[in-house]
């Protein structure tokens, strides 16, 4: 089910922004390691130039840094060239030791990258890992990239994980499981379904998306015997969408839905809560899963790992998750670039 991303074939390469995230973590290492190889796209690291230079020195990788020029056409970079949109650090960085004086720096990078995506300078944003706790310690409330970007762009995010053609979106994300049942309302679910449907069309280029929807309860409530949210909330929403001839199937028992027989006829699954949908991607062996945020006015994908503070500057890291996130962003950006205007 895993597909190779379709890279754009026209002559102008796509231009993506990368925010390495926490400067004391492995984010800068990822930017450096990626720049060591040639690319068929332009990847602009929105970060401190000094930080990237010193991290490259630490890793023993010779890089030539090029300042981002928004007026120039995007260009595919050769091995050893790193394009940077320079952003000043709050304080010098020690590997493995996040500092609260750099919390604003992390968010500045993100703000710049997001704004530049929205105004069209970039085709998409790939985010590296941030240290949530240090941002909060600095007195800035921050619950995650997704929420932060949504707030800055005044939009409603839907979290999706994608591995090849297997896509799982979530009706609820990071909240206690005991709060999930009351968090799913007809209104919130309808909005999530509409965003998912629209973005599968617009971002993934699927003309008539087929979506399977999980029930909340075991056996999808078994006719109300095991919970009534299917009858009271989920089914009415799906009926409304089906009345518009949109292909929403469900609510289905999650344990039968996540079997090959059902999945092969679907473009995406909508799960009701985090652990109903995401574990499947990890253990089903569908390949590297990429986190994609739907519902934003920009394309945003993310690595699926943390800051790995103990590995920063060590050179002992894998770039697979970042490459998967970049490939996904390129795929979506390509659909965006080739799609006829609505």
């Amino acid at each position, binding site marked *: 089910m895993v597909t190779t991303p379709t890279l754009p074939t026209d002559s102008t390469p796509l231009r993506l922004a990368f925010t390495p995230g926490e400067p004391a973590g492995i984010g800068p290492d990822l930017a450096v390691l990626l720049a060591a190889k040639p690319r068929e796209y332009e990847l602009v690291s929105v970060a401190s130039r000094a930080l990237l230079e010193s991290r490259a020195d630490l890793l023993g990788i010779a890089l030539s840094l090029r300042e981002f020029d928004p007026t120039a056409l995007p260009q595919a970079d050769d091995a050893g060239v790193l394009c940077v949109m320079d952003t000043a650090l709050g304080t010098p960085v020690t590997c493995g030791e996040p500092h609260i004086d750099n919390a604003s720096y992390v968010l500045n990078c993100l703000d710049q990258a997001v704004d530049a995506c929205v105004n069209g300078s970039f085709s998409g944003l790939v985010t590296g890992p941030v240290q949530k706790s240090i941002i909060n310690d600095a007195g800035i409330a921050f619950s995650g990239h997704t929420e932060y970007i949504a707030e800055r762009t005044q939009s409603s995010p839907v979290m999706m994980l994608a591995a090849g053609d297997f896509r799982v979106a979530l009706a609820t*994300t*990071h*909240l*206690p*499981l*005991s*709060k*999930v*049942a*009351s968090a799913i309302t007809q209104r919130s679910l309808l909005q999530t379904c509409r965003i998912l449907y629209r973005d599968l069309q617009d971002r993934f280029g699927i003309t008539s998306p087929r979506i399977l929807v999980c029930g*909340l*309860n*075991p*056996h999808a*409530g*078994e*006719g109300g*015997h*095991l*919970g*009534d*949210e299917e009858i009271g909330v989920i089914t009415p929403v799906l009926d409304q969408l089906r009345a518009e001839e949109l292909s929403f199937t469900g609510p289905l028992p*999650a*344990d*039968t839905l*996540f*079997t*090959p027989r059902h999945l092969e006829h679907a473009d995406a699954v909508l799960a009701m*809560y*985090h*652990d*109903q949908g*995401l*574990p*499947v991607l*990890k*253990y*089903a062996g569908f390949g590297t899963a990429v986190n994609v945020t739907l519902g934003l006015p920009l394309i945003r994908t993310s690595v699926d790992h943390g800051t790995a503070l103990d590995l920063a500057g060590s050179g002992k890291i894998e770039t697979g998750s970042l490459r998967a996130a970049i490939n996904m962003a390129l795929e979506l950006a390509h659909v965006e670039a080739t799609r006829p205007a609505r």
Partner: protein
Amino acid sequence: MSTTKPVIGMVQGDPAGIGSELMVKLLADDEVRQRADIVVIGAPSVFKRGEDITGHTIERQHTSAFDAGRVCDAALQHIDLAIDGIADVPLSQVSAAGGQSSLNGLKLAFELSKKKRIDGICFMPLNKESMHLGGNPYMDEIGFARDYFGIDTAASEFNIAKGMWNGRVTSHVAMKDVPAMLSEERICQSIELADSTLRMAGYERPRIVVAAYNPHAGEGGIMGREEIDIIRPAVQRMQERQVHVSGPFPADTLWLKVRDGEYDVVVTMYHDQGQIAIKLLGFDQGVSLLAGLPVPVTTPAHGTAFDIAGENKANITPARNAFMMCCDLSEGLAEKGGWYDASRAADNKKLPE
């Protein structure tokens, strides 16, 4: 009847589903027949339905419940269950008669096990809705079984596929009602049941892992406190009792470790947490075991499959696995001092303060 082979009661299950064809297919399998002495419990008309669907004819000796099991000489016995209207139940439809036959069949098997006539029970898929129509007041068969045997200690369904075991703290319960049912006591009981069940299945020191309830295992209390307040204390108490148990761990990474053989059994907090994983990882293999009863009871881990009933294309593997597992668990029980000992479980309820 041979004394070395286990005697297995094979219960028909819902007449409208794939149970009748599965049963006949099993009985047409030489390995199955050689593995145990078998007592079929069910309506002859339904058995005939299975024969017609599969094209096999199975010789059986019809016997009464009074003569059945260990006291009968025949290797394959059939106790006729008389249920009004059972012959007229169409394929692929729920019915009170179907539910009644499932319940009566199970009950008869339980009775025979109480009298030591049979060592283990393997039943074909039941239909919960039919059973409900047929008078079952419980959400599932384990409730029915607990009531029959008068058990008030932990009894729970385990699912097994490809050597991975899964027991759960709550089962057929609405998601919003799960948190109120999670208690340190209940989780300790589930861990203990996992430990004793796997020991009886031949694991010397079962490696047990406990799943978290919240996403990211609550991430230090930010996304729920059940891990801190309930689950971790329960795990610690069982560790103090020398049970090989760890957790709570986030459900996503945990199953990877189970798949890779780091643990033998996962104790999950709610139904879908284990079911999604085990069905996906052990697709077309799964067995369910009703654990904590005085007799080993197994069944294939799928339902009645009304959509393909009568088409003779149902996959036999889960039913075959269920039967073989039932035989394994039932073998030599006399020497082992019997199956699950409820009094031991009751002792274990007295946990250290």
